[in-house]
């Protein structure tokens, strides 16, 4: 069994629903209790009937006179025949009784008055000869049989096995109840009334027999045995049990289905909330989306509202942090303007004192560096403005990249560039100037870290529905765990002494952040990876291809 099924909310709720199994168990016990009650009732009723019949036959000394003593009776044989008859419900075997059956007319007449439809009455004398016999059990059994088989449903047929009433002694095989019967008759003949449940010979029912002595004065002259079928109880038990089972099944199914639906809904809500939380924050920890607060009043709704508030607060804080650079630069401009204008005034109109000029020069250089730094701090904000206000157009990426590479070759003659572009057009939608800027940043970075003498490898290919641009350089590898963080603003792993293109102007770690901004704007993504051969680092930018290349491609 797959244990994972039970780890979800649905599985757990279903396991809990097994508690419902208590219902049929309790019901079955109740039915058993009811059966015991009914058995007792039937026993008592039969015992009192037997007593009544015995009372009717008592104190009539002439009833039990034997017409003649048959000599040489085989008492044992007689007894066996009687007992055999006892075991059956078939009165046709009366013939087998032979001399054991010596009916007294008087007894039979009385019995005829007392007979009942569902029972058989024996009157036996002290020599165990049957003096009277009335009634039959067969009809009842047949009735019950037909009724049983008429319950065509499978449930009843299944349950018939379970609803057998238990016999007084389960070890007796049917038909071999002889010992017990003998004992019952013997006991009655010495004056002890008994009741006994025995299995019918065809195993189809249980027969209840009650025995009573017949007194004449202080002497026992015979015994009365009344037998009755117990089909009524059996039928009742069968009915009750099958009803119980049916109801239990229905309740189970209904409970099962309801719980399943409820659990499914619960699991779906929780999963949806989890998914929203997951997508609200992207791989770099920026807040991408919002969680819609649910209006439900239960715990999950509350959780959703809490999460929504948390995400919103995080987003606000993130926005504040990101805008801080821009705000800082704005604030810094004014003092920088003051310093610069003061220096300008000094430079314009001071007498040419070389010493003062030197200091003014240095101050000016410092201010220019400061100004440039401020400018780059707000570069991200300006880039965002620029991207928002620039019109998107469809253009051929290859042309732009190829043009840029040409430009780099001209601008940096000491650095080698290997360009692998393939052929054909790779049409994307966006802002060409921004893509050029993105490549500028990546190349600047690559040049800073490139080992001397090695070439920078730039390649551009279409892969599926994306255009993949990669810029690789030989040189030191990325530090572990930082490859995503490098795309965040202000994170830089540049060793202090590295000069490179940024040179003396100072380094803010903004280059890759801008790369990510531009890639995101175009619906793509940027990653940094160590080269598989461990020789260097490759920056990879994947951009989605424009789906309708037949639009006019404007190159401006």
């Amino acid at each position, binding site marked *: 069994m797959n244990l994972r099924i039970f780890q979800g909310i649905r599985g757990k709720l279903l396991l809990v629903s097994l508690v419902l199994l208590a219902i049929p168990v309790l019901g079955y016990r109740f039915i058993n209790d009811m059966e015991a009650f009914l058995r007792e009732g039937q026993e008592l009723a039969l015992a009192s009937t037997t007593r009544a019949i015995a009372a009717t036959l008592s104190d009539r000394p002439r009833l039990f006179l034997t017409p003649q003593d048959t000599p040489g009776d085989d008492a044992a044989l007689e007894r066996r025949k009687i007992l055999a008859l006892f075991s059956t419900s078939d009165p046709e075997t009366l013939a087998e009784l032979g001399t054991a059956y010596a009916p007294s007319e008087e007894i039979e007449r009385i019995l005829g008055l007392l007979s009942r439809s569902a029972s058989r009455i024996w009157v036996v004398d002290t020599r165990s000869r049957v003096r009277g016999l009335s009634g039959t059990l067969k009809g009842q059994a047949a009735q019950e049989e037909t009724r049983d088989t008429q319950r065509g449903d499978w449930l009843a047929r299944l349950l018939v096995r379970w609803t057998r009433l238990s016999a007084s002694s389960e070890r007796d095989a049917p038909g071999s109840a002889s010992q017990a019967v003998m004992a019952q008759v013997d006991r009655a003949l010495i004056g002890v009334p008994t009741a006994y449940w025995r299995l019918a010979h065809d195993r189809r029912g249980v027969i209840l027999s009650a025995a009573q002595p017949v007194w004449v004065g202080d002497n026992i002259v015979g015994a009365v045995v009344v037998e009755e079928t117990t089909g009524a109880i059996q039928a009742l038990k069968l009915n009750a049990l099958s009803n119980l089972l049916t109801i239990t099944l229905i309740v189970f199914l209904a409970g099962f289905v309801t719980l399943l639906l409820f659990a499914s809904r619960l699991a779906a809500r929780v999963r949806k909330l989890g998914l929203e939380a997951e997508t609200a924050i992207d791989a770099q920890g920026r807040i991408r989306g919002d969680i819609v607060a649910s209006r439900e009043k239960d715990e999950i709704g509350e959780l959703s509202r809490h999460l929504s508030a948390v995400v919103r607060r995080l987003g606000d804080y993130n926005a504040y942090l990101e805008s801080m650079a821009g705000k800082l630069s704005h604030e810094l*401009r004014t003092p*920088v303007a003051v310093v610069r*204008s003061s220096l300008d*005034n000094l430079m314009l109109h001071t007498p040419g004192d070389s010493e003062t000029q030197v200091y003014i020069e240095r101050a000016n250089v410092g201010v220019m560096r400061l100004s440039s730094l401020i400018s780059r701090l707000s570069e991200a904000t*300006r880039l965002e403005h620029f991207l928002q206000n620039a019109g998107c157009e469809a253009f051929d990426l290859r042309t732009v990249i190829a*043009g840029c590479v040409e430009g780099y070759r001209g601008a940096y003659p000491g650095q080698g560039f290997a360009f692998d572009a393939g052929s054909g057009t790779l049409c994307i939608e966006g802002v060409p100037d921004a893509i*050029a800027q993105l490549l500028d940043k990546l190349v600047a970075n690559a040049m800073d870290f490139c080992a001397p003498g090695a070439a920078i490898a730039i390649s551009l290919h279409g892969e599926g529905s994306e255009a993949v641009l990669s810029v690789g350089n030989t040189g030191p590898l990325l530090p572990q765990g930082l490859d995503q963080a490098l795309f965040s603003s202000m994170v830089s792993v540049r060793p202090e002494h590295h000069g490179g293109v940024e040179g003396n102007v100072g380094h803010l770690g903004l280059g890759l952040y801008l790369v990510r901004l531009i890639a995101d704007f175009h619906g793509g993504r940027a990653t940094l990876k160590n080269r598989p051969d461990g020789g260097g680092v490759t920056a990879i930018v994947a951009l989605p291809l424009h789906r309708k290349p037949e639009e006019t491609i404007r190159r*401006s």
Partner: protein
Amino acid sequence: MAKRVALVEDDRMIRENIADALKKSGYEVSTFHNRTDALTAFRVRLPELALIDIGLGQEIDGGFALCRELRSMSEQLPIIFLSARDGDFDIVSGLRLGADDYLTKDVSLPHLLARIAALFRRIDALASPARSEDVVARGDLTLDLNRLAVTWKTQTVVLTVTEFWMVHALVKFPGHVKNRDQLMDEAEMVVDDSTVTSHMKRIRKKFLVVDDTFDHIETVYGMGYRWKP
């Protein structure tokens, strides 16, 4: 006669520094630190050139309002905007207030003085007939270097001083590529690359308003810009 320049700037130190530089260059300067004072003075007597800071005290866009009122008083008056915020350039351009240029506050004073001088030259040039040796013609384009006037297919294109100098840099040698540093030099400013890109974008837009098939300014990716002859 010294030219009269009005300076509206709320930060005291910047205001006085600029005023000093202007005075030392021979201009007569009147300074104001809020909009109302400036307006009151302008209603009495208009200056010959106005330098206006956009954020004036409590009013974030006080400068725009002042410009509008000044323009309603004089169509020809040269107005230069100063601003601490980068985003203002697009706003100013979009508002079409008729400013002649816009600069960030930390512009170097020599660059500022160059622009003021050019604008005063223009006023003088407009008063006298056009001199052909100061006109550059390239196909459908004409540039009058004194009047700082541009026409495309005989229609006037209104450019700021900065934009004019950039276009001039391109068309001086048509077909040659100018990179952003060179354009910055010619336009007398020191800014970063994306600001140059923004200026070029705005220039293209202005030409497109006049002629929607205009595409003579070509971006050469990785290198710069070029005027297509």
